[in-house]
């Protein structure tokens, strides 16, 4: 990279009033043909392009994005990164990603601000305790650094949580993964874009895919708002819009696209130094480096592409936040927004070939795709380059919905007696 970022380059550029910084990425006109095209310029798509170029020497490739890179779920999520998943397949996938996260700023020469401040998952009933302990045992044997904390240890790690036994759903304990944390979402998209661009990848923004041209069982190219582009390999990483692309080739996917909302408070001085997640009462909170409380709300149950959800969901989330953190009652919501998440029935993603030759899908990440970004990109690049999945994503094929071999990460079903 000719324009390496560092404190020295900042000093050097300060003398010229920062007038000599180069473009982070070019703004190329699409070529007539590429070796491969990635549809979707979010984190996953850009990472896929980066690893195709870096590890598989495929440099004549393009990322096409209908809006602006990183403008979808990448720039809208609450940036939680963890790998303490239950099943071996998921643990393998997400920990692969986590390991890449640990060196990503240096790999990209772009500070993605991966901050390993730990992620804590709370238990609020006895079945939660069983489920989380089960997960912790599985994590340990899979080499993932999750530990069980009792209520006092939870309180010690995050003193502002209300651990009183008198609240409606008291905290009975929790798990902690210290290597987990958060990152700066925009930086991930921009860092991958800059690094991919430097290797020759064309990033084409404002280019919407209108159709996929097929010849029998194979793909031949894409019709876009910037014209037809020829290619033999298409990787679709379109998140909430995956089905829209799939419908162009009459492919049905096991996906539903639903609104997911999030919100931030006004910025305050450091008050919570970790990420706390509570599935049972639906509250996820961390504090950004800027000082805003970053709060993830739930999904609505209906399909919608509006990037807006219902107010009930936000109200329900803040209700849970105040249950666990009554000190936040006088904090103020600064901004709320929505994204469109594509959800698989088993809450696990699809990183897979399809029955159409040269057409690959990376989708179904639901509410938790951000954490997988580097791993997902790496494995999807492998799948596209070799026309075969890597062993870490072999279980995440589309065929699992036919065979029944799901990777069910919903956790235990209902609470029951």
């Amino acid at each position, binding site marked *: 990279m000719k324009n390496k970022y560092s404190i020295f380059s900042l000093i050097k550029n300060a003398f010229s009033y920062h007038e000599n910084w180069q473009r982070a990425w070019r703004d190329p006109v699409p070529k007539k043909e590429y070796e491969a095209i990635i549809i979707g310029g979010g984190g996953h798509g850009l990472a896929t392009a980066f690893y195709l170029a870096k590890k598989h020497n495929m440099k004549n490739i393009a990322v096409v994005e209908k809006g602006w890179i990183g403008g979808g779920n990448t720039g809208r999520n609450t940036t939680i990164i963890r790998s303490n998943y239950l099943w071996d397949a998921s643990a393998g996938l997400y920990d692969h990603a986590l390991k890449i996260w640990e060196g990503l700023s240096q790999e990209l020469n772009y500070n993605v601000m991966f901050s390993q401040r730990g992620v804590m998952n709370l238990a609020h009933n006895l079945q939660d305790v069983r489920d989380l302990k089960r997960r912790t045992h599985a994590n340990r044997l899979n080499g993932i650094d999750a530990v069980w904390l009792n209520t006092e240890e939870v309180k010690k790690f995050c003193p502002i949580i209300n651990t009183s036994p008198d609240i409606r759903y008291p905290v009975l304990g929790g798990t902690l993964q210290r290597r987990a944390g958060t990152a700066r979402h925009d930086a991930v998209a921009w860092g991958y874009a800059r690094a991919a661009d430097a290797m020759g990848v064309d990033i084409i923004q404002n280019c919407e895919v209108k159709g996929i041209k097929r010849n029998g069982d194979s793909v031949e190219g894409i019709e876009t708002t910037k014209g037809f582009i020829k290619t033999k390999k298409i990787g679709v990483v379109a998140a909430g819009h995956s089905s*829209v692309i799939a419908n162009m080739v009459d492919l*049905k996917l096991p996906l539903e696209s639903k609104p997911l909302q999030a919100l931030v408070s006004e910025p305050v001085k450091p008050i919570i130094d970790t990420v706390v997640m509570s599935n049972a009462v639906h509250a996820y909170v961390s504090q950004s480096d800027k000082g805003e409380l970053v709060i993830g709300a739930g999904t609505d149950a209906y*399909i919608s592409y*509006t990037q807006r959800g219902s107010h009930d969901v936000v109200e329900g989330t803040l209700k849970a936040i105040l249950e666990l953190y009554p000190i936040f009652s006088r904090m103020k919501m600064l901004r709320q927004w929505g994204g469109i998440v594509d959800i698989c029935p088993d809450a696990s993603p699809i990183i897979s070939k399809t029955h159409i030759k040269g057409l690959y899908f990376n989708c179904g990440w639901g509410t938790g795709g951000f954490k997988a970004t580097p791993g997902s990109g790496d494995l999807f690049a492998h799948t596209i380059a070799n026309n075969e999945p890597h062993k870490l994503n072999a279980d995440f094929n589309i065929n699992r919905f*036919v065979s029944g071999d799901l990777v069910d990460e919903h956790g235990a079903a209902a609470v029951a007696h």
Partner: protein
Amino acid sequence: MFLINCPYCGERDQSEFSAGGEAHIVRPKQPTELSDDEWAEFLFMRKNIKGIQFERWNHAHGCRKWFNVIRDTSNDKIHAVYKMGEEPPIK
């Protein structure tokens, strides 16, 4: 939040209803005769349409009746509601 015109109760706030996904996916009468692929198609595969979608809603906190809604998923505008078993008023 939407206002949904329940065909049995009239216009109510969305919070009274629960969504039931794509409509008109009929449970096969003879599941045993389907291939694994065909069964998966019924179980999991969805059009997940961006645009006019025919979908099911349940007046869960009201009359508990299921009915169909025609809604544009790109702007959440509801075009019609109709009872289960009725022909859609719009094609």
